[in-house]
């Protein structure tokens, strides 16, 4: 155990609360004064002025950088959310988010894990709130899949070597860098339009299905129809192919004959796209 450092601990706790205060360093310092907190450090007791800057100027450099830096990180992770909200509102939302959910991890890639849920349930006065939260869900999934565990995919030959009579009983292990999303808005097309700098109105609610995955170290997001979404979901949950197909057949809009006829092509495509990393026969 290192020796104790009570004065250092006091300074660090004081400085952290000052430089992360959402209304700025001065607001926090004034709040300490107005609360008449005799235990709290005062600015002048703690930070010396320089020839050119006051104590407040100096600590404010750190305070200004705090929100600027975290905002930059989150805006890079959520470019479409930023586009929909506009810079000013987005910055405001991010400031509120990091104030309510400050980073508790050493790595910045976990800072915004709660951002989609925050947008949906903890914010007020955000236009198109449900749509924005759906977009954030996809953008978060893209971040997560980027960092996910790497495992080797199974080659097409492995699937082709399975005897016809065993196909119904196979179970597939999925690439960990793949997630299936059921959404209330068609966000995928909108995200593509923003990325391509094309205007698109905010779409009306519509049930859509998206797969986000990493293939050859690139992140992809594709729309799925309901049949393929359900099939992949059941397989991902560990069901046999036969059981998954039965579940699909129960859907009112699914043509099971068509689905079965397309299976071979789909599996070729999914295997090439690195969806699977193992097979249990």
């Amino acid at each position, binding site marked *: 155990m*290192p020796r104790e450092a009570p004065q250092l601990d006091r300074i660090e706790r004081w400085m952290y609360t000052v430089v992360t205060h959402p209304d700025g360093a001065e607001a926090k310092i004034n709040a300490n004064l107005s609360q008449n907190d005799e235990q709290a450090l005062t600015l002048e007791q703690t930070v*010396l002025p320089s020839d050119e800057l006051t104590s407040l100027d100096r600590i404010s450099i750190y305070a200004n950088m705090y929100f600027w830096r975290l905002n930059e990180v989150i805006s890079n992770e959520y470019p479409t959310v930023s586009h929909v909200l506009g810079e000013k509102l987005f910055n405001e939302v991010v400031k509120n988010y990091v104030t309510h959910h400050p980073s508790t991890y050493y790595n910045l890639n976990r800072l915004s894990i709660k951002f989609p849920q925050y947008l949906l349930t903890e914010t007020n006065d955000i236009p198109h709130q449900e749509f924005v939260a759906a977009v954030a869900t996809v953008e978060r999934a893209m971040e997560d899949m980027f960092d996910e565990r790497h495992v080797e995919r199974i080659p097409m030959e492995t699937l082709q070597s399975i005897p016809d009579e065993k196909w119904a009983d196979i179970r597939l292990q999925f690439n960990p860098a793949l997630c299936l999303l059921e959404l209330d808005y068609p966000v995928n097309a909108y995200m593509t339009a923003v990325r391509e700098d094309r205007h698109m109105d905010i779409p009306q609610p519509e049930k859509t299905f998206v797969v986000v995955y990493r293939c050859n170290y690139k992140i992809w997001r594709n729309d799925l129809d309901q049949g393929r979404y359900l099939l992949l979901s059941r397989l991902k949950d560990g069901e046999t192919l036969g059981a998954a197909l039965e579940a699909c057949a129960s859907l009112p809009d699914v043509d099971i004959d068509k689905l079965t006829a397309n299976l071979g092509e789909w599996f070729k495509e999914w295997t090439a796209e690195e969806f699977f990393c193992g097979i249990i026969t």
Partner: protein
Amino acid sequence: MHIKNCWDFPDLGLGVGLRTVHFNHILENWPEVDWFEIMSENFMDTEGRPLYVLDQIAERYPIVMHGVSLSIGCTDPIDFDYLAKLKALAERVNAVWLGDHVCWTGVAGRNGHDLYPLPYNEETLAFLVDRIRIVQDFMEQPLILENPSTYLTFASSTLAEEEFLARMAEDADCGLLLDVNNVFVTCRNHGLDPHAYLAGIPYNRVVQIHLAGHTDKGTHCIDTHDCHVIDPVWELYADVHQRAGGRATLLEWDDHIPPFEELHAEVMKAAQFRQTTKVRHAS
């Protein structure tokens, strides 16, 4: 005669910080760079493309790890989960050495993701020395710790930064990464003489040197790593070379990052100082 560092860590020559925007250029051209420095945390908690690229680069170039999250000066308990991941990455890329900053990044379980300054006094020194020793024991290698750019002075500081660093390095038996741009920025912000600062550094502890650009705000400087190295910083580099001789030298450029060739050309400017500066001989 050059002053060797305590551990005989090699002078790796002139390197650059590995940045995502240069991945394709490096993989396609395998440029003639002496070595790369990575920001450790960019390759932790991920098994995506950055790690895939790093594995290939580490097969061809020496890699030095430089972190921003060790928070060696933080009064919270040491994060051994973080250290375990750091150690695993160091083994994976066969890191020549690993470093971080003399700072804290958060407290009470929260992280501000900045390099916050420490009060330089006896209490901090004793605390920091103990923490460094514990971390070094766990990592089974010396830490190479960098002088940060600072923007404020604590009233409770009783030691000059260079004196604090010298005693810290000696008492904790750790190395120093001397960032000459940070020396410039800190001295400018605190009205200090950078050459006097450099005179107080124990060069037998200096393993690596950093160069970078900064932004002059008129009343103070900010360590922005977004532009070329200015001439006064090159003069400090020449001063360090006179005092210490060859040290692994790295250029950091983290914002408005130029094409790789321009980045490389910038660090190669250091070669002229390494060749033409007459090195002081030990008396």
